[in-house]
Each structure stands twice: as structure tokens, then as C-alpha cells.
């Protein structure tokens, strides 16, 4: 096997339970985002654009959709002879076999995979974030500073800091302390869940961690604190561009809206750093005689006969004549029937919002959610903040 300087391991096994109905049947990284993408397209495209050509994707929860989506890795130019993208589910060995118990355990179980490439560095990523980042630049910084581990960080508003893993640093951005969701944060530098490790160092810590029966086998809770306690060189790598953890319904909605603000808070139109996706290859979208589309993103296969304002319509979505979609996210293949009003909502994949339904509300109301593969009967109501799978009547 060819030696690689750096390979990436992408943690994609999380359930994403805070996304409610959306992750009932698919893993969080497979959730559609931004009209034609899925969350995992962002780290995979970043790898491809950063010329990192071996990516192990660790899957566990509801992996079928994700496996199908990744396929041979062709959309990201990762269908290679000398590398590529590899889906790594937990597997049995002669001695044992078990689920991934935590982020560190997942990597531990795949030490033989990593060793095949004999890398000097391993990049650990997660499949939960929307951002465009050059991992090579981070790797160069890691090498230049001679660190054992480099963690990407970004400043967050102080009031939000208690909900992140916070890095306390000295004046040279060396990490002195790590606090998971501190009540009284000393810093506002949040971990982005992107790590570069010297592989020989990480390997030792993974093995030690595995030997400790009291460990949670988690990077944030165990590996990083252990390295800090041993006085290893941990550097913070500052990243100031757009980054969003789309772990909740609200943040997923926010992040989609960031694409259509004017100017867009998250700009995908930069051709030097394209985001790749598996393309369904559908007809260009059609807007009808009476359609009104403003401040929105619309993609292939959509048919708009009604009104779409400040919304993101995904591949193959239909808005019938007389329907209104406002400040909403309509995922692939869904149909908003005539007379329906959808405001401040997320509509899952292949869902039908029946005629005259009312989903969500305007103003500052909470985001309403209708799950995937749901048929919402004519005249149904889904209140703000509510989740509907079509089985029980809303309200």
C-alpha cells in the first residue's frame, strides 16, 4: 500500500437525535442541505479540494442511505486506485466485535485501516458541520508549529460559549485547557471538531484510552484532556470563515437561510472551492405562468407554479399553484399542494403537504417540522415548534 502523509477519518456514525424526525431513518450526515447537497458533501468536498485522497467514513447509525450516497466516491473525485473513500462500519474479529462505543473507540477499532497507509498525520473530522475549509493549510500550520495535535477553533459569541467545547489558549494559541460546555467560559474559542494528530502519538493515546475501563472513549472528554495532562503540544488553529453545527432543527434551518440572505452569509458560488454532490441529473427547474419566486434558491427538477419567498427548494420539489412557501426548507421530492401555506418550516424528503394545510407561522415563531415520506392530509395544521409525521393531527 502506498504511504500517505495524511489521511482523513470522518466520524459519521452519530444519530443526531436533536434533529427529531429528520434522523428517524437516515444518519445526520445524510440529511439534505442547501438545495442539492447533503451535510457530508461539505467535509468530503473539503478533503477533495484539500488534496486529501484517503477518507475513511465511520458509520454506525442508519448507514444504508449514507453508504448508497457515498458509493464509489465518484462525485468527489475520490474513486481512485491509489486511495479513495472507504465506508467503515464496525466489524467482527476473531476475538471480539462490537459497536463503536465513542469517537475515540471508533478510531481505535480502525487502527488497522489507518496503518495500511502508514500516515504521519491523521485528520479527524465530523459529519455534522457546514463549512468550507482548506485542511492542507491547517496541516501546514500543524507541521510548522511542531505540534502533537492541532485543533481548529473559531470565536463564537460569548453568550453561546457555554454550549460549545471551549479551548483556553495562551498568547501563542497553544491550548492550555479544554472545557466541555463550561458554565463560566474563560475563552470564546470553540472547537470545530476538526483535529490533526501525529499518528504515532494518537495511536498510543487510543491504546491507553482503550485499556482504561472508566473512559468514555471520546476525543473531547478523554483523549484531549489526557494529552493536555501529559504536557503535549496542542495548538489552536483559528478559522474565521463560515462554520455551522447543524445539530438542531433551528440551526439546520438557520444555516439554509444563510445561503439566501443578501449577500449570502455562506457563499457557495466560489468556483475555486466547489462543493460536490451526487447529482440526481434532473431537468432544469420550471417556473410557471403564475409563479412568484423571490429571495430563494431553486434547483434541478423543481416545479414552481405557486409562490416561494425566501426559501430553499431541493431537487424535484413542487410548489403547486395557489400554494405559499415562505422562509422554509423543502427537501427533495416533496410536494406542497394547492392552497397550502408553509412558513418557517422544514419539510422532509418525499413528503406531501396536502391542499389547504397550514404548517408553521410567521414572525419569530419556532420552526415547524414535517418528517420525510409523510403524507399530510388536506387541511392539516402543524403549529410552530411542532414535529409531524402525519399520523396524528396537529394542533
Amino acid at each position, binding site marked *: 500500500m502506498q504511504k500517505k502523509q495524511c489521511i482523513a477519518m470522518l466520524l459519521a456514525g452519530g444519530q443526531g437525535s436533536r434533529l427529531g424526525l429528520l434522523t428517524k431513518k437516515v444518519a445526520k450526515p445524510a440529511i439534505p442541505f442547501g438545495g442539492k447537497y447533503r451535510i457530508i458533501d461539505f467535509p468530503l468536498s473539503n478533503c477533495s479540494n484539500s488534496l486529501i485522497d484517503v477518507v475513511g467514513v465511520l458509520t454506525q447509525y442508519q448507514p444504508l442511505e449514507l453508504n448508497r450516497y457515498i458509493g464509489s466516491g465518484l462525485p468527489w473525485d475520490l474513486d481512485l486506485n491509489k486511495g479513495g473513500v472507504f465506508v467503515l462500519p464496525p466489524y467482527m474479529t476473531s476475538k471480539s466485535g462490537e459497536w463503536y462505543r465513542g469517537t475515540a473507540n471508533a478510531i481505535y477499532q480502525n487502527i488497522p485501516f489507518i496503518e495500511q497507509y502508514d500516515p504521519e498525520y491523521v485528520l479527524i473530522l465530523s459529519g455534522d458541520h457546514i463549512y468550507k475549509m482548506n485542511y492542507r493549510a491547517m496541516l501546514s500550520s500543524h507541521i510548522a508549529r511542531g505540534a502533537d495535535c492541532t485543533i481548529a477553533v473559531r470565536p463564537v459569541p460569548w453568550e453561546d460559549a457555554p454550549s460549545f467545547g471551549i479551548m483556553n489558549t495562551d498568547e501563542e494559541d497553544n491550548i492550555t485547557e479544554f472545557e466541555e460546555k463550561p458554565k463560566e467560559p474563560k475563552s470564546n474559542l470553540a472547537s470545530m471538531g476538526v483535529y490533526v494528530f501525529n499518528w504515532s502519538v494518537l495511536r498510543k493515546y487510543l491504546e491507553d484510552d482503550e485499556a482504561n475501563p472508566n473512559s468514555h472513549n471520546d476525543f473531547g472528554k478523554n483523549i484531549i484532556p489526557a494529552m493536555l495532562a501529559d504536557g503535549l503540544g496542542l495548538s489552536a488553529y483559528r478559522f474565521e470563515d463560515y462554520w455551522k453545527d447543524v445539530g438542531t432543527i433551528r440551526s439546520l434551518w438557520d444555516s439554509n437561510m444563510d445561503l439566501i440572505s443578501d449577500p449570502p452569509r455562506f457563499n457557495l458560488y466560489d468556483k475555486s472551492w466547489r462543493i460536490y454532490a451526487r447529482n440526481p*441529473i434532473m*431537468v432544469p427547474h*420550471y417556473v410557471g*405562468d403564475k409563479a412568484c419566486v423571490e429571495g430563494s434558491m431553486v*434547483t*434541478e427538477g423543481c416545479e414552481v407554479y405557486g409562490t416561494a419567498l425566501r426559501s430553499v427548494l431541493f431537487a424535484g420539489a413542487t410548489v403547486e399553484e395557489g400554494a405559499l412557501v415562505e422562509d422554509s426548507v423543502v427537501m427533495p421530492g416533496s410536494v406542497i399542494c394547492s392552497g397550502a401555506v408553509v412558513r418557517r418550516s422544514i419539510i422532509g424528503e418525499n413528503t406531501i403537504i396536502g391542499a389547504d394545510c397550514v404548517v408553521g407561522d410567521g414572525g419569530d415563531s419556532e420552526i415547524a417540522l414535517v418528517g420525510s415520506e409523510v403524507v399530510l392530509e388536506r387541511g392539516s395544521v402543524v403549529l410552530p415548534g411542532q414535529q409531524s409525521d402525519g399520523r396524528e393531527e396537529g394542533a
Partner: protein
Amino acid sequence: MKDVMGIIYTTKDDFALRELTASRAVAALPVVGRYRIIDFMLSSMVNSDIKNVGVIMQKNYHSLMDHIGAGKEWDLHTKNDGLFILPPFQTRENQGTYQGTVDALRSNISYVKRSNQEYVILCSTYSVFNTTFDNVLDEHVASGADVTMLYTKYPIEDRSSSSNTAQHCYLDLDEEGAVRNIEMGAEHHELENFSMNVFLMKRELLVLLVEQAHAKGIYSIHQAIKAGFLDRGNYLVRGHEYTGYHKRVESIPSYYAFNMDMLDEATRKDLFASPVFTKVRDEVPARYAKGAVAINSLLADGCVIEGRVENSVLFRGVRVRKGAVVRNSIIMQESDIRENVEVEHVIFDKGVTIREGRLIGQKGYPIVIKKNFTL
């Protein structure tokens, strides 16, 4: 359909398509916002599970090769068979340019002989349609035909007088669907069965047909069938009616009409009933600014609309800026309609920029602006 191979004869550049085919083959002509003409033939073949497709190239095939590449998008980048690009070449017997389908096939006859499928489907790139050939093969086998030709009804009142009708072929059929005669040109007969230039026969029969026709100096495949099979009487040539959407794209008006036909929902759903594959460009979804207006139009990904778009087809990455108006037009990839510019009845090739003013063509005679032109 594993036992069928496909051959696409990409026709020569055509003067009736003027600027649009100045630098590209008809097969590579951009249509319906994101496709090229050849996508329809390639997709029809792969949707029929045909695994071996040869594309005979002629002049200006650079953009065609760029488009189809190794055939990945059509799942034709396979270890066995797959996509064969057959560019012209020169030998002592071969001039490197083809006078017709027969000539082109003769030059590439070793590819046909080397293939191991029993049947071959041959088509050209003028006729746009989207189908699967399974039922054609079933009927071909059941009827014991030697050759099956696809045709579509083309009533006399629908025919335009302007286009190059000399190459049009019509089939004279008996009640059983057997071809009695083939008439060329549109003038002197009342036949309505318009040949779509799609032929199904045994591969070995095609080899025989080509060799016989070449010996007689015949270049046209229709003439070859007429002389080699019909006039001799001992072959069964049958017609198979295709009832789906069909358009022969061979002139500026027919190119314009084809694109505009796709604005009609029923017609669009007819042509795209089975998927049409094409090269993927990884564009971002189209974005509509506040105050944008778009009605009765098809818009591809990557478009940014700030102005007004009506009854038009916009290809990938087109910008319609504030105050600009685009009506009844076809605007290809990466064209830029600047602030307050008004265009109507125009066809813009790729990368056209209009900085100011108005450009209004006539209904039926759209103004064509060539590639990368700035006005």
C-alpha cells in the same frame, strides 16, 4: 438488451444551424438548459441496458469529446465494452471525411465486426427523442424482420418549407407495417411516416449492408436499405411507430422550437419520462434575488436572477441583473445580461455578455449571437 450494441453517427456540422455549429458538432449542441443533443441518444441506449456504444465523430468533435469523456455519466466507463469514441482517421482507402452513414460505418467496420452483440441499433443526432428500445427489439424478433426502422407521424401541414428537406425520408408501409418503399425529400409525395434515422438489425446484416452499398458507391443508409433490401424483395424491412415526443433539430427555427416546446409541462414530462443523463458541472442551485420575476421558464442551476425572465430557457450560470428583461429567448451557459438590458427573441451562445441597450429579434427569426461575444 445485453445482446444489442449501439452506434451513434454524429452528423456533420450543419450550415442551417449557423453560428451554433460553427465550433461544435450538432451532437454537442446545448439544449434545454443543461443537455447536449447526444445525451438523448446515449440515455435511450443505456436506459435500454445497452452496454456497448460506439460514437462516430466527424468534424468539430472537440466539444463532443469534452462532453462525453469516458462515459462516466452514462455508466459506460466499464471494463468490458462501454463507450467507444470513433474519430475519423486517414488510411490509403479512407479519406478521413465521411460522405454519409455508410461511408462512416465502413471506416469503422472493424469495431462493428469486433463487437460480440447479436443486434445493433444505429441512430444519428438530428432526431431528438427519449425512449427505450426493448419493445422495438421484441417486435423485431416476433415479426421476423430483417430491419426495423423507427418512424413518427409528420403530417404535411406541419412541415416547414424552409428547412433542408432533401435529406428527409418517408416510409411507404403496407397494412402489416412492412416498408414497401422509401421516399426522400418532402415535395413529391403524401407519405406521413417520417424516418427517425433509427435502425435495428442483426450486426452481421449491417456489415453486409455496408459492404454491398460501398461497392455500389452508395453513401446514404436509407438508399443502401432501399437498393440492398427493398429492391431485391427477399428482405423484410418493417416500420415501428414511435408515438412519444420527437423533434428534428436541423435549423435555427427548429432548434428554437424544440427548446420552447419544453416549457409545456406535458411535453416536457413526455420527453423526460425516463432519465436523461448528462455531464455534471457541480453548479450551485439557482438563486433568485428579492424583486426577481420569472414566469413560464426553465432555469438551470448556477443562474442568478435579479431581473425579469419570461418564456425563456436559461442554461447554467446565466446572470440576469437588476432591471434586465429576458423574453422568449434561449440563453446559454455563463451569459451575462447586465443591468436594464432588454432582450427578446434571441439565442445567445455560451458566454455572451450584453452590457447595455435592447436586442429584439423577430418572432420565428431569433437573433443568434455567437460564443463569447460581448455587445
